[in-house]
């Protein structure tokens, strides 16, 4: 079914550093607390709009908050 998206993020770390709760962050960018939890746990990749809102809220660029993790290939495929 669904697999974890290869997008990583530092939302939790940045949110905690600024003393924000998940509810505060959710209210600030217009999503629920549960969506913030899912983003932090890597179970949901936010829309581009929400990603920009989060990055701007932290005063950072998009790639300072979100990253792309290359999917791990099988060792057999890697040897080719």
């Amino acid at each position: 079914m669904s697999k974890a998206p290869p997008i990583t993020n530092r939302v939790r770390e940045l949110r905690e550093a600024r003393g924000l709760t998940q509810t505060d962050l959710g209210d600030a960018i217009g999503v629920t607390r549960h969506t913030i939890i899912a983003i932090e746990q890597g179970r949901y990749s936010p829309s581009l709009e929400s990603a920009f809102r989060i990055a701007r809220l932290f005063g950072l660029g998009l790639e300072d908050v979100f990253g792309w993790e290359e999917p791990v290939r099988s060792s057999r495929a890697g040897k080719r």
Partner: protein
Amino acid sequence: MPFREKSAWLMLICLGLVSVAYAALVATMSNAVGQLVPPLIPLLVVFTVALVVLATGSHIVIAVLAPRDAVAPTDERDRAVSARAGTWSGYVFAAGVALALGLYLIVRNGDLLFYCVFGSWVLAQLSEYAFEIAFYRRGI
């Protein structure tokens, strides 16, 4: 747990219970008369009312327990989960209807066609709730 996931759980349970009860009653009545009973509107009304009462009552309980979550508008994740679950359940419904139509071409029984399409509809709805739960829990 998001309110909409709780809601999906409740609807899965309520619709599952009512559907099983309805199917069991139709099967019992059909066994008694020795053939498939035609769809009865009063029976459908009774089970629809039962579903509405169960669903409304259970949603009132979860709304009272988490009022803030209950009044929160849907966000982008809720909409994405709902859209994908709806798409997948649409495939379930389409497959059920295709099978029902195929069965009708062989058996030529309108009552059976009704039950098969109705069953596909219920199954599709149940699968939509199940997909929603899966997407909320495993990610989308």
